[in-house]
């Protein structure tokens, strides 16, 4: 797809993205000021597509998704501007009553820690059935039967027995399956998964990811996968958005990000990833320093102080997202026409000397 085709005005009607976010800005009021947690984020996901959102802790990736779902406490949180359209319908600033007709129905969420994401004093079945009873107007018995089906779908053995159990009787992986089953109850068109595998064992991680892919194939829904694990992104995502300090710094297809990285931060992330070929005693690369304080974001690029290739302009002026290819863009001055840098040499795998 070319840029021109992708533009909303040029798109054919049947290609309405499942979720389109435009220039979202979110801030939190804190003692003596405001934290600008999300600073103008735009992205969109097509039905059946998976968007991976990567970034380190506190980069605003979770806040972005939470504010779209209306899950950030307001106050102190505040959506300053922007829009988020689910199948063309605006989500932001909806009253709770209308939002509740959409949440859990058209868009649902899977959380990081399944242990704490479920009500400890309510049976698993009841928690799944609750969604169905509220949104589909099902009776208690029918909803429970459907809950059994859903648990079976997420490959939980003995589902009939399991619906009557409590969360503490489940293992972590089983719980995450149950949470996924719950989020699938009303066949949403978008599934937001906020670090769905971080709290799980590695073997279980694979199973859960596999399950998500399989369900996506069957249901054709869009998935927004929030993670800090590049490995998960490489396996799952079609498109990737790299977030840093409340902004998207690079986005593109999964191949763009991994083989044609166009932002020093993405490069740093990749370098920090352990590989199978690493030797014992070999140190993992770390990006020195820490992200800027979003209490008073810097005038220039937020990554400038940690960047090996920083230029004078980086400190003074925030770069725009600069297109570097088909649907591939990077928020970096190095990509600017006036920058006399051999970008390709810099970013080609093998060219880096680590």
């Amino acid at each position: 797809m070319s840029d021109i085709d992708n533009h909303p005005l040029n798109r054919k009607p049947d290609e309405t993205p499942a979720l389109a976010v435009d220039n979202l800005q979110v801030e939190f009021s804190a003692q003596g000021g405001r934290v600008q947690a999300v600073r103008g984020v735009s992205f969109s996901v097509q039905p059946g597509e998976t968007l991976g959102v990567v970034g380190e802790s506190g980069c605003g990736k979770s806040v972005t998704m939470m504010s779209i779902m209306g899950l950030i406490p307001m106050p102190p949180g505040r959506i300053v501007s922007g829009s988020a359209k689910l199948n063309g319908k605006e989500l932001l600033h909806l009253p709770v009553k209308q939002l509740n007709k959409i949440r859990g129905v058209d868009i649902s969420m899977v959380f990081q820690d399944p242990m704490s994401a479920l009500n400890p004093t309510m049976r698993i079945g009841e928690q799944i059935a609750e969604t169905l009873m509220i949104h589909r107007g099902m009776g208690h018995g029918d909803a429970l039967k459907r809950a059994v089906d859903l648990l079976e779908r997420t490959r939980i053995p003995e589902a009939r027995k399991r619906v009557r159990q409590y969360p503490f009787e489940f293992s972590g992986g089983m719980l995450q399956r149950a949470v996924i089953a719950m989020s699938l109850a009303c066949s949403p068109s978008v599934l937001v998964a906020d670090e769905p595998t971080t709290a799980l064992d590695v073997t279980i991680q694979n199973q859960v990811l596999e399950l998500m892919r399989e369900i996506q194939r069957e249901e054709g829904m869009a998935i927004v996968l929030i993670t800090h694990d590049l490995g998960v992104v490489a396996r799952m995502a079609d498109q990737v958005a790299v977030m840093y300090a409340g902004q998207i710094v690079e986005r593109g297809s999964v191949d763009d990000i991994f083989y044609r990285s166009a932002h020093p931060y993405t490069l740093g992330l990749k370098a920090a990833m352990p590989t199978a070929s690493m030797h014992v005693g070999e140190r993992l690369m770390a990006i020195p320093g820490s992200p800027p304080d979003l209490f008073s974001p810097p005038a220039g690029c937020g990554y400038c102080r940690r960047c090996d290739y920083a230029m004078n302009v980086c400190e003074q002026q925030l770069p725009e997202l600069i297109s570097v290819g088909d649907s591939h863009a990077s928020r970096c001055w190095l990509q600017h026409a006036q920058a006399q840098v051999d970008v390709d040499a810099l970013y080609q795998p093998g060219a880096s000397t680590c």
Partner: protein
Amino acid sequence: MTQFILKRLLSGVITIWFIATATFIGMHSVPGDPLANEKAVAPEIRRNLEARYGLDKPVWQQYGIFLGNMLRGDFGISFTQKNRYVNDIIREHFPVSAVLGVLALIIATVGGVIWGALTAVYRDRWPDSVIMFLVVIAVSVPSFVFAMLGQLGILAMNEWLGFSLLPVAGWGSFGHMLVPALVLGLGTMAYLTRLMRSSMLEVTSADYIRTAKAKGVPPLRIFYKHQLRNAILPVITVLGPSIAAITTGGFVVELVFAIPGLGRFFVQAVQQLDYTVIMGTTVFYGAFLVIMVLLVDILYGFIDPRIRVGKVRG
């Protein structure tokens, strides 16, 4: 669950035995012969008592007799009120204390849960500040001051109304119970309000509340189905100690409002050094409290699935 109850029952029995033993040791170390007190009884009763309690026998035998008597539920005869069995005293006066205590407990629990939930819902806004200010007052002012103020309040109200709406003291009707129960429950209510508030706040920021919101559950349903139920659990765990606090708090309230409860009787017995009544009531109260804590434990077990199902992890 059965195993859980059996375990609790066993520890309850041992605790009651421990209380009885401690009482025996305590009273046995009273200097001198307890019967040689100035308030001692006529010689024939004295001989009877000596035989009954085996005061002439060695200590361990006395202990055996004491335990045997307690086991049979025989607390002996009052020293100061001749021909009155301690059992009769308890039977006559305890129901009064129990009715007052139950009413106070209901007021304290219902009030604590409601106020606590309110403060959490209106966190950092004026209802929260007002209620928490009152809570601080309620835990800082001794109960007898509230009892006196309560009495003064009734007086002032009756005077203002021109007729006696509520009796100032005494026992008999619901009107007699209302203010004493309120005063008695006040301290516990304040404590439970604080507990409920922090528990509610903890639950409010819990992940599963966020999950429920993400599921599109309406706010009201989130409040009663998810928040309230989980927030009340810690309140139930402290019901045992609350019953103990209300029971002993009853002493003062019964004294001030002239209510013929066991608490007032106990205080009188202590002031008159009526040994059998002191021992009997102490063991009785001790056993009563142990049983109450036991019941609360079992009740909690039924409410919290993590205990009911009996597979607590961690």
